């Protein structure tokens, strides 16, 4: 331990978290501090009265409880759908496996308004599913009336989030060695018991890690809850913060509410982090990926794999395909009926003059891809560097981890107000705008990348590094030749999430570039705002395509590293 400690405390490791911390401080913490401080400023000057009033009001407590409740339930539902999938993906190889994994990043890149529309087009009263069932069974009313109820919120959240859990857990599972399980089987334990008492506890770090992400996502959900939930009876903290900040222009009130939100979610994060560290220490790393070669053996196993693949494909693909199909429809003639048409794609690739905002679609596509690629490339090293510092035990690293996760806990409205402060202080041309946008996207992506890298990182036995350092390698050499190669898979996954998050981001881009930079989601919003839903769907399809391609490519790269 001594060697390791003295090795890691050398300048190299100490300097690692600095770039990440600097980005987070300048672009996140400082503006957040300014925004939140307004919670304490009243007409009489500094005062805690507003905070106390907000924290103790029964209305606030009620919406806080509902917000926590729906987030917990959504996380639970996502876990239930995701874990069987993670099991299949980690233990078997079968057809459609890559496709399922590739589709898992898709929900990230689609703006929530299009997810809502996709759901409506697929599950809605007039949607594909109902029309299909009505035709088959000759029904007069739509049989599936799931939208506009509480159930729809959970359904949509599960759609959005189960791929995150499935992806993170299965990639962790793939790298877990089978020795303990084999020993248990040899000693006569049944498969179910082995799973319960050995495999599941070993998987916990990755389950907790991914579930915490999902929980925070659902906690800050907005459009899905209002539209698909059916209205104001389901109000979350985010809606209330929005109302105060934007409708009532009561920044102080919004800041107070946001502060409450941040405190609650930070407490949860601290608890997660604690449990996570204890759990991960017991896990060891392996490079073997023998388990992957298995195919389902029993007929039942094969049937289950098939069933799961089909139903999850239907579940993820339903709303996505709805968006894709819509994009091929246009009513070009006098009649109102829509027919198959490539109109939007011709406009998109400037083969014909764009109607309205379609004219800026190509430029937006270029911007989106280049910004997202840059964000992914920069986020990986920055997050990895943060992870090296966070991996260790101790108060400082726990604080740093919490700090790295903080952007996820803060309402986008509050972050938006913070960006306002920055964009008014820093003035410059489009170049400055680009830089700020890339940095802001990194702030959003870092928590994700951290959540992907950390569980894997903690598995790497300290003895590897110790051996290397004892044998005379410098810390830098040890880092690049031992740690980085072992983390390749996690780094790629983190990079993809960073790419996808950046592709879908809208608020920071609008504010920080003073609207000078258009990206695909921005053009999509403008199209929808000017009645062109099909055009928006065409751009959505491009987003889906790009993220799928990027995912498949990086999966292939990952495959190579494991010698597959």
């Amino acid at each position, binding site marked *: 331990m001594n060697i390791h400690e003295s090795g890691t405390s050398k300048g190299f490791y100490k300097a690692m978290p600095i770039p990440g911390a600097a980005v987070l401080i300048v672009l996140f913490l400082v503006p957040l501090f300014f925004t939140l401080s307004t919670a304490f400023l009243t007409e009489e000057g500094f005062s805690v009265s507003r905070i106390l009033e907000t924290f103790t009001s029964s209305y606030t407590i009620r919406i806080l409880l509902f917000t926590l409740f729906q987030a917990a339930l959504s996380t639970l539902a996502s876990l239930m759908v995701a874990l069987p999938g993670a099991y299949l993906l980690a233990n078997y190889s079968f057809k459609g496996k890559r496709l399922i994994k590739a589709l898992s990043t898709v929900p990230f890149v689609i703006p929530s308004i299009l997810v*809502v529309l996709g759901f409506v087009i697929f599950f809605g009263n007039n949607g594909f599913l109902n029309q299909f069932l009505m035709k088959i069974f000759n029904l007069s009313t739509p049989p599936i009336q799931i939208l506009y109820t509480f159930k729809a919120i959970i359904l949509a959240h599960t759609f959005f989030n189960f791929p995150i859990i499935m992806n993170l857990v299965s990639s962790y599972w793939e790298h877990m060695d089978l020795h303990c399980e084999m020993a248990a089987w040899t000693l006569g334990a049944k498969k179910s018991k082995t799973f319960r008492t050995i495999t599941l506890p070993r998987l916990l770090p990755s389950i907790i890690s991914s579930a915490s992400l999902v929980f925070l996502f659902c906690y800050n959900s907005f459009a899905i809850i*209002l539209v698909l939930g*059916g209205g*104001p*009876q389901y109000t979350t903290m985010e809606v209330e913060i929005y109302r105060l900040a934007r*409708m009532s222009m009561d920044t102080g009130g919004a800041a107070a509410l946001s502060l409450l939100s941040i405190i609650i979610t930070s407490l949860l994060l601290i608890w997660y982090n604690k449990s996570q560290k204890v759990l991960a220490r017991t896990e060891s790393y392996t490079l073997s990926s023998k388990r992957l070669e298995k195919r389902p053996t029993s007929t039942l196993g094969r049937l289950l794999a098939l069933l799961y693949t089909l139903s999850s494909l239907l579940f993820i693909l339903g709303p996505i395909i709805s968006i894709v199909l819509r994009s091929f429809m246009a009513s070009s003639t006098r009649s109102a009926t829509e027919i198959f048409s490539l109109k939007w794609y011709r406009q998109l690739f400037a083969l014909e003059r764009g109607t309205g905002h379609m004219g800026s679609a190509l430029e937006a596509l270029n911007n989106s891809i280049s910004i997202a690629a840059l964000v992914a490339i920069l986020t990986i090293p920055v997050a990895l560097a943060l992870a090296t510092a966070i991996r260790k035990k101790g108060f400082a690293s726990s604080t740093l981890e919490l700090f790295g996760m903080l952007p996820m806990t803060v309402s986008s409205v509050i972050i938006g107000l913070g960006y*306002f402060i920055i964009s008014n202080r820093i003035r410059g041309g489009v170049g400055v705008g680009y830089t700020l946008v890339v940095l802001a996207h990194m702030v959003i992506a870092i928590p994700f990348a951290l959540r992907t890298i950390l569980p894997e990182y903690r598995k790497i036995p300290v003895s590897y590094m110790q051996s290397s350092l004892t044998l005379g390698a410098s810390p830098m050499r040890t880092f690049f030749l031992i740690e980085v190669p072992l983390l390749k898979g996690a780094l790629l996954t983190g990079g993809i999430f960073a790419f996808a998050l950046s592709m879908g981001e809208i608020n920071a881009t609008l504010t920080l570039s003073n*609207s000078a930079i258009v990206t695909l989601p921005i053009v999509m919003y403008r199209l929808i*705002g000017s009645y062109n839903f099909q055009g928006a769907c065409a751009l959505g399809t491009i987003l889906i395509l790009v993220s799928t391609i990027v995912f498949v490519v990086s999966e292939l790269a990952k495959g190579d590293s494991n010698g597959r």
Partner: protein
Amino acid sequence: MEVLMNKHRNVCAFLAILLVSSLLFAQGKQEVPASKANQEITVYAYDAFCGDWGPGPSIVETFEAKTGIRVKLVSSGDAIEMLIKVKSEKNNPIADVVVGISDDMAAKAYEANLFEPYASEALESIPAFLQIDGQHRLLPFDYGNFAFIVDTEKLSKEDVPTSLMELTDPKYKNKVLLIDPRTSSVGLGMLLWTIEVFGEEGYLAWWQAMKENALTIAEGWSSAYGLFTEGEAPLVLSYTTSPVYHVTYEETTRYQAVLFTDGHSTTIENVGLLSSSKNKEAAKLFIDFLLTDAQLEIATANSMYPVNSQTILPPAFDWAPKPEKSLSMEASAIEKNLDRWLTEWTKVMSR
């Protein structure tokens, strides 16, 4: 080492020269030969106004050609964002004109004391009911009326409602798409509309009754209208002018605006001259232009009514029926009560 340092220095020097010369070049390029060299104004407008499809770009082009004054059009979010932006720049002002403060937000604009009165001559051609500010700090440039749009393929003619009250009839159960006033300006317009029609004592009863009939209360106009065109419900809250889009670009009259006997709440979009402007004469010319020559362009691109009564509209506007009664509310009344109304509304609707 010595050589390396030298090389380094050379590179730096080269880059510095490059930078300086490029700056000079950029400066030179921007120069305008005419006497109007210093005449540039910065205009903040909401996003949709500045988009390719919005009226902004073409108006600016015509204005620049006509006057020689350059206009820097900055797309700045929505009305609230623009107010926050201008406020935060008070010590270091950038903009001269702000385009798109709706009447709901007028009180916040007055309160912040940002705008200077300007009694443009063009106001003579603008009806009095549209001039919300007696002091002319804000001048109207277009307006619209909130209304329900009906999908005529889903609802037969005799079933189309004729008043707000009729909309609460059980036969419209799950047939209406509403919008949340806490998160959308159109939603807020509906809330004010019900207060204008039923008064403070009656509006909550209407909303209470509508809970059953609303299929959902969306967070924004875009979601609600998207659900509507997907055929989820036959009635949606929007503007009387919404059908103009469908007629112009889709050549269909399937979606029509419904006129109510109660009258229709009005939303008036305004332009204001910032008191911090350093180029007021040019800014005033731009405002005059908005209220006169640009009116047709604004009306068609924004799908709103022009304020200038001399504007001649294209035939598609026949599908945007003008209500006989336009309702509105004092900006100060909104400012005073809005928070309470929203709270009361939330209480009733979340029960």
